[in-house]
């Protein structure tokens, strides 16, 4: 696990974990590392220590499973675990023997924290290596000294983006930032430089350490932080600015970045020996929070599971999708063509004529051009990708497709027509799919000769950015068709969720509950500014009225109208009524530059349409912000629960992931279905009943 050898009186500790896909800090490696370090400390013949790795990466971080496991233990247990690790890393600084981190590859999280405890960091110029403290992105904080050593090393202001945003660095960037002391050109050079430094520095001290009267290495009580200490005139205002920026970004919904600021604020005022305990306390508080549990559980492990095909029927061989046909070169069709070609799939992009289809292909060309400009791709690669897209007006070019995705206008007759024309061109066993966001798949499948091989593939706009694809099963859709669709979604590296056919499927239906609740609040005379703010502060990407405008009010009008016809919505549906009033005033939403908002010419910003006050006069009594937030969140969560109970969505994970990735349900709650666990089942239920009594049956818990 950690190879130990002596060279030139120097102990070389090389990480090489074989039980894990990467070197990570876990229950196996931490004791092994401790043992190896102790051996080197105790051996009088050893004059120095090098920590390095025999794998591509240095150490990729801590094993999140270990953290999840400790999540449910008493706080004192997790604190003891954390302090144990702190003491281990601290022993590197206080052993008296020079220790060099020879960073051969990626060092993230706990991996970088090992190197920060070493007296010197030398990094190999490895283009694939990433250095950073990404804990915050998982709702955690660097809990093995990262919040203490990095600002002590490079200054409080300089350390902030790495701690608060998890910004990653190449070895060269880390060198320029002062995190890495020296760069090496080859593994041999790396080792040679490490050895040379140890020989030249037999008794190094960290800048924040000193020797006490007895000769032991201890933290300085008044270490002078580069760039100024916590209460220095230059640095002190940064904490207010930093806290404000964090609050602007998180609205207080995510505890980790604030805790990181607190670690720096509190810890850098005292010596490092005591400061590490301060960090550990904050670490335990944050790691044991529901938010960290949710982010790690749903977004990290959950999404990985879904990406691997958790919802794919078992026992069906994997299809390698080679040729995909796309009907309709509009915005969605063009986007689907782009992500398919990026995955190396041959794409036939068909529209009414080759000219129209070429316009859709040009969309890919534009995105690829941008990627080249940003250095994310090369001309050669981009050309190869683009050459995979064949723009055509001819159905015959669709011959032998593994999968055809219809992405024409949301019109049943049109969809039926293209289905009849294209389906016969599929290869034997090929699958026909519809990228519809609302029309029931079972009905659309009636136009197909093989309804068992007809499926819904609901992409989200913009296709290249949105990670989710909602796969919709019609009544007759077979497992084989689902498996093939899943294989395609995995190939284009999107996250699939599987839902059963019904009105609005899963994501559109729950999303509509958000806009609908916003519209109902408006109709009750709640200040629209308060409604919009409540949506954003609850953690939604935009307010319910703003997003309605973006979707377009005439579309909401049409969809709700269809819902009423289909019996899915009541005849007096609030969204339908309000949307029809707005539409009849010509206020169709953002595209018409008039909707719930006014859209003046740039650079002026959009603002709420003052005419709303005439349409829905403000009530004398306004609800509290918390009440409005609750209504917006509970409504969505309850809709997801209904979907789950009705069998529309099949697994909890799909429900949660779909909510976060499709319509931006806040991740800190774990997803629309997990929200009730985060709140607590009993408390959620009681609150839903209260809301139902106050505002209507739509809040009645399942």
């Amino acid at each position, binding site marked *: 696990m950690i190879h130990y050898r002596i060279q030139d009186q120097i102990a070389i500790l090389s990480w090489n974990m074989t039980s894990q896909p990467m070197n990570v800090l876990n229950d196996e490696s931490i004791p092994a590392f401790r043992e190896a370090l102790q051996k080197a400390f105790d051996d009088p013949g050893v004059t120095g220590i090098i920590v390095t790795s025999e794998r591509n990466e240095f150490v990729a971080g801590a094993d999140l499973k270990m953290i999840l496991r400790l999540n449910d233990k008493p706080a004192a247990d997790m604190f003891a675990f954390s302090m144990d690790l702190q003491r281990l890393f601290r022993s590197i600084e206080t052993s008296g023997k020079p220790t060099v981190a020879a960073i051969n590859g990626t060092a993230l999280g706990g991996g970088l924290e090992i190197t920060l405890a070493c007296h010197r960091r030398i990094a190999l110029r490895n283009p694939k290596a990433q250095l950073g403290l990404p804990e915050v992105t998982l709702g955690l904080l660097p809990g093995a000294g990262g919040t203490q050593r990095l600002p002590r090393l490079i200054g409080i202001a300089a350390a902030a983006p790495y701690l608060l945003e998890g910004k990653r660095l190449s070895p060269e960037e880390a060198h320029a930032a002062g995190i890495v002391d020296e760069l090496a050109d080859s593994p041999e050079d790396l080792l040679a430089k490490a050895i040379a430094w140890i020989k030249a520095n037999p008794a190094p001290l960290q800048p924040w350490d000193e020797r006490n009267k007895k000769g032991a290495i201890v933290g300085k009580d008044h270490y002078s932080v580069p760039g100024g200490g916590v209460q220095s005139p230059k640095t002190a205002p940064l904490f207010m600015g930093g806290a*404000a920026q964090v609050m602007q970004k998180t609205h207080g919904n995510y505890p980790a970045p604030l805790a990181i600021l607190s670690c720096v604020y509190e810890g850098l005022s005292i010596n490092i020996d005591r400061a590490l305990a301060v960090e550990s306390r904050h670490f335990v508080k944050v790691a044991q929070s529901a938010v960290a549990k949710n982010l790690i559980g749903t977004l990290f492990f959950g999404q990985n599971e879904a990406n691997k095909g958790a919802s794919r029927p078992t026992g069906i061989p994997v299809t390698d999708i080679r040729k995909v046909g796309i009907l309709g070169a509009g915005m969605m069709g063009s986007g689907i063509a782009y992500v398919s070609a990026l995955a190396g799939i041959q794409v036939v992009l068909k529209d009414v004529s080759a000219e129209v289809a070429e316009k859709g292909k040009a969309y890919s060309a534009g995105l690829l051009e941008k990627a080249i400009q940003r250095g994310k791709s090369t001309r050669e690669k981009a050309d190869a990708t683009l050459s995979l897209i064949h723009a055509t007006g001819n159905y015959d070019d669709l011959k032998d497709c593994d999968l055809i995705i219809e992405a024409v206008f949301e019109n049943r007759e049109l969809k039926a027509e293209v289905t009849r024309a294209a389906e016969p061109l599929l290869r034997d066993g090929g699958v026909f799919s519809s990228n519809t966001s609302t029309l029931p798949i079972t009905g659309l499948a009636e136009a197909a000769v093989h309804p068992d091989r007809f499926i819904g593939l609901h992409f989200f706009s913009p296709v290249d950015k949105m990670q989710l694809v909602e796969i919709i099963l019609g009544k007759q859709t077979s497992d084989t068709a689902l498996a093939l669709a899943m294989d395609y979604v995995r190939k284009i590296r999107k996250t699939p969720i599987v839902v059963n056919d019904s009105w609005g499927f899963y994501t559109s239906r729950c999303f509509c509950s958000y806009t609908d609740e916003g519209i109902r609040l408006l109709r009750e005379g709640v200040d629209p500014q308060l409604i919009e703010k409540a949506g954003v502060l609850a953690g939604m990407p935009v307010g319910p009225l703003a997003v309605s405008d973006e979707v377009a009010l005439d579309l909401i009008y049409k969809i709700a109208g269809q819902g009423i016809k289909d019996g899915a919505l009541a005849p007096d549906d609030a969204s339908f009524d309000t949307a029809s009033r707005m539409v009849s005033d010509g206020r169709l939403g953002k595209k018409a530059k008039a909707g719930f908002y006014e859209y003046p010419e740039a650079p002026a910003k959009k603002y709420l349409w003052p005419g709303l006050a005439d349409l829905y006069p403000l009530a004398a009594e306004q609800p509290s912000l918390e009440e409005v937030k609750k209504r917006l969140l509970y409504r969505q969560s309850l809709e997801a629960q209904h979907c789950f109970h009705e069998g529309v969505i099949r697994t909890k994970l799909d429900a949660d992931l779909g909510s976060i990735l499709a319509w931006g349900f806040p991740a800190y709650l774990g997803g629309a279905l997990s929200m009730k666990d985060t709140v607590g089942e009993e408390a959620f239920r009681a609150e839903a009943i209260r809301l139902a009594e106050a505002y209507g049956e739509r809040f009645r818990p399942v």
Partner: protein
Amino acid sequence: MAEAFLYDAVRTPRGRGKSDGALYDQQPVRLLTSVLKALRERNALDTSLVDDVVMGCVAPVGEQGADIARTAVLTAGYDPQVAGVQLNRFCSSGLEAVNTAAARVMAGQEDLLIAGGVESMSRVPMGSDGGALFTNPEIISRHRIVPQGISADLIATKWGYSREQLDRFAADSHRKAAIAWQEGRFGRSVIPALDEIGQVLLDRDEGIRTDTTEASLARLNPAFEAIGQAGLDALALLNYPALPAIRHVHHAGNSSQITDGAAGILIGSKAIGEKLGLKPRARIRGYAVCGSEPTIMLTGPVPATRKALSRNGMSVADIDLFEINEAFAAIPLLFMEELGIDPAKVNVNGGAIALGHPLGATGAILLMTLLDELERTGKGTGLASLCIGGGMGIATIIERL
């Protein structure tokens, strides 16, 4: 209960609180010393009778640290038996000192005190004392603590004060202050600031500008827009969800001036005045302090004034003159609007926008300005009030004798 009387009041002129200000080369303790000396000399005071010297100072660190009140007692050559204490209630410290001293007289425990304050903002910049309230990220985020300028802009937004209204108020402050100086209305309280060899460094408030007009103010850039947009507006608006944004309307010209200065008021019982042959100039009718919402922070004068009035069985109509600190132009506008006060009764000789706001001293300066004006005009009652950091307000009512 005994009564507390104001016997005399003295202050330095207010110097620009920058390195080009007239008082920049004067140590803060020297400013305060000059005030104590003047009070002794003007009243032929036997300083052994003074029980305590209570002084406000808002950044009591560095050369303003270590109890600057006791330090000034020694440097002024007062009897060493006189005690000294420094206190800090942010911008109201000078008035807090007066109220504290008055309360001790009213309680019958002490007879004679000097209360006031000092601040050399040019030498010990605002914020030099740090403080958990303004630096601890957990406190800041939980209580949405923002700089006062953001709070003042939030008030202007919430109450709908336009940039023009604020600039008009600011220009008026300069006009009124200029007239007051021309007519020598501050003459009774202000002593010239002298250097070590007796030369006059400054004999009038340095910040008054006769050329300030609404048009000249209109050219100034908002002072808090940049920091506001870097996150602080969003933090403040978490508590004000019904506001879409904060309008940044305050700037260097319609906010109080950063200045250096010191002030002291001689406060005592009726008996001590009789004993020393001093004529009481005014009586303290009462005072109040209160907390208010800390994000918007500066609305406290309104509830504090209501509290002071109602505790004394008075109403706004019973007050002839008001001094409300012009920390930012929105504050007096809010004060007048919320309390229904006639603008003709408010800050009749200008305020901190024209004259400056030496943090620790201002409260005492407002009270002596009020007293001088009551005497000049023969009016009876006055109320001084200030907004306070952290979300507080203070008000003191005096009655001319």
